[in-house]
């Protein structure tokens, strides 16, 4: 049954007119208008097709066809013990089940005065005036998926830091899916005012081997001198689809450290767009994707250097086995005003099987003359000399390959300065390495 493309759009349009009145914040005229504008935009654009240069490697048909339900049938189908398997020690934990905030499963600790962490639903049901500037507009350059999120967003998290407010412990936003055939639209907004600092762990996982569709948008606004870390751990079910946009605007001398660990989902795509909008702003984008079987994991990053003396660093690594596919598309644009920009990007890939495939495309577009920019990309196999060295010490071939593969991932794990998250990754990664027979090249 091959439904034509526009059927998907019609489906979402129909659901929108049916569900919109009950979406949170509909008493706010600006939000109503924003949702409608977003829905129109989505209807106009539709799902990106293969002819769209930015999407041509991402096979979206599997997301387009099913009619995912937009509202979960019953809340709270997850028990506290099930959360424990995903909770990270030493964090303020906020749990979302099928997209809805679950206060009973969460344990935010006492926050310093000046820090507000609330569920998005709660924020939207209040007067939400301060959100209007952010959630009230649909930026022209967002993906159709971000527009879909804008139309249907129901819950998520709103973090606001007053000037100078610094959070010591990371905030873990744990999104758990437990109901099959659901489309979940989490929305996260971070407003970090001057000189504030916080670390956010955005964690996506599932209870059970179910198929669903997560379509997230995370917005970060870093005012002058703010320092934000955003670590994303995507370990969705192997049958799920995960599409996400991470959008950050950085003012003068602000810092952003972003990491994206893509481990789960049948198909996942993360679009990260950073605007270095104030002098001296700096960002570090790191990522690790580990794709097995027939998984398809994409990262598309775009960094706009808009003002002088900004710095960006990017290191993405990929490990692919089986018949897995991955795309890394990293764009750095240095605008005419952005003198003394310093940008470096690298992408390194390890292919553990002949059938695995990666498309890596670093792109530098430079419109200023006094800049320091560079990039490097590699695609390779495990090193034979290293393998022999380990085997000559008694380590069997399979273990040696696993040790070297973990060594390849080490750099990415080490860059996350959060011990609990590092430990979790050290537990998760070995299970994703191919068994002896699959690993042979």
């Amino acid at each position, binding site marked *: 049954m091959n439904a034509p493309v526009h059927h998907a759009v019609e489906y979402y349009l129909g659901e929108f007119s049916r569900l919109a009145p009950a979406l949170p914040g509909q008493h706010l005229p600006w939000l109503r208008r924003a949702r409608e504008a977003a829905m129109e935009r989505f209807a106009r654009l539709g799902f990106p097709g293969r002819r769209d240069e930015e999407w041509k490697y991402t096979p979206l048909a599997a997301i387009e066809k099913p009619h995912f339900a937009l509202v979960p049938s019953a809340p709270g189908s997850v028990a506290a013990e099930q959360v424990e398997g995903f909770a990270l020690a030493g964090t303020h934990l906020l749990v979302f089940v099928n997209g809805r905030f679950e206060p009973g499963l969460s344990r935010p600790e006492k926050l310093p005065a000046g820090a507000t962490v609330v569920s998005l639903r709660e924020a939207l049901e209040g007067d939400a005036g301060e959100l209007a500037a952010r959630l009230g507009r649909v930026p022209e350059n967002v993906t159709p998926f971000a527009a879909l999120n804008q139309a249907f967003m129901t819950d998520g998290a709103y973090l606001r830091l007053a000037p100078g407010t610094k959070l010591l412990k990371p905030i873990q936003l744990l999104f758990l899916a437990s109901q099959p055939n659901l489309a979940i639209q989490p929305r996260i907004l971070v407003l970090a005012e001057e000189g504030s600092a916080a670390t956010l762990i955005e964690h996506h996982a599932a209870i059970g081997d179910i198929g669903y569709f997560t379509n997230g948008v995370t917005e970060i606004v870093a005012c002058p001198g703010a320092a934000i870390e955003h670590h994303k751990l995507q370990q969705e079910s192997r049958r799920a689809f995960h599409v996400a946009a991470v959008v950050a605007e950085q003012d003068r001398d602000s810092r952003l450290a972003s990491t994206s660990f893509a481990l789960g989902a049948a198909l996942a795509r993360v679009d990260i767009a950073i605007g270095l909008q104030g002098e001296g702003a700096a960002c570090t984008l790191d990522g690790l994707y580990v794709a097995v079987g027939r998984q398809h994991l994409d990262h598309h990053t775009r960094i706009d250097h808009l003002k002088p003396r900004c710095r960006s660093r990017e290191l993405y690594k990929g490990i692919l086995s089986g018949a897995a596919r991955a795309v890394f598309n990293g764009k750095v644009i240095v605008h005419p005003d952005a003198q003394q920009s310093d940008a470096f990007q690298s992408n390194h890939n390890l292919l553990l099987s002949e059938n695995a495939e990666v498309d890596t495309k670093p792109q530098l577009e430079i419109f200023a003359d006094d800049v320091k920019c560079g990039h490097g990309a590699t695609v390779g196999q495990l090193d*034979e*000399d*290293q393998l*022999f*060295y*380990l*085997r*000559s*010490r*008694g*380590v*069997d*071939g399979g*273990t*040696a390959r696993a*040790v*070297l593969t*973990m*060594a*390849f*991932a*080490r*750099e990415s794990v080490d860059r996350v300065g959060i011990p609990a998250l590092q430990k979790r990754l050290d537990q998760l990664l070995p299970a994703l390495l191919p068994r002896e027979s699959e690993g042979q090249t």
Partner: protein
Amino acid sequence: MLEIRNLHVAVDGAPILKGIDLTVKPGEVHAIMGPNGSGKSTLAYILAGRDGYRVTEGEVRYGGRDLLALAAEERARAGVFLAFQYPVEIPGVANIYLLKVAINAARRHRGEPELDAMDILLRVRSKLKLMDMDESLLYRAVNESFSGGEKKRNEILQMAVLEPKLAILDEADSGLDIDALKAVARGINAQRDPGRAMILVTHYQRLLQLVVPDRVHVLAQGCIARSGGWELAAELERTGYGGITGREGGEEARP
């Protein structure tokens, strides 16, 4: 312990070893000398089980078994150890972790319980002292950015920790300063044991003054051209390889 009979080895179709005969008994230390490119490392790799070589003739028996039939890791677990002429750098793998997986691979093989990180550290510390190495090297990536001397010490450290039955040390002494040479010699001598055999590949008599071998062999153009006692090393130091290989002096012996 080790019996090599009429061993012929080719790489990419080119013959490199052309009929090696060598017998090493438990407790013995044999030195193999010879000009650059004569096939010393090839012999060492063949014994350790590196891929890419073709044995065209001959056999190698180790403790009565067909050594060439075993995979590299099986040889290691059966007690064969190779100290590499060019130790391999492994970014992302801590030196102590390599020791841990190596020790535990051997223990699993012998049916012994695996050791945890603390047990490993306790075992390694005394050997570090023997090799006059700083403990910080344990936490760095294997050989990555190690100095030449640190790499060689690290190879001997691994031997000391793994306690092999047959140790093949390929130029364990090249590129070392005097203190490092002494440390390496100390490490080797500490491992001399009636139950353990060693093959030292070297270009220099210096090492052989510190680790006195039972036999010295000269490998030239893929064959053992001469064998003798310790005095052969002294003779080579005076005459070079010219007299032995029949060529106009050997190439300058440099690592």
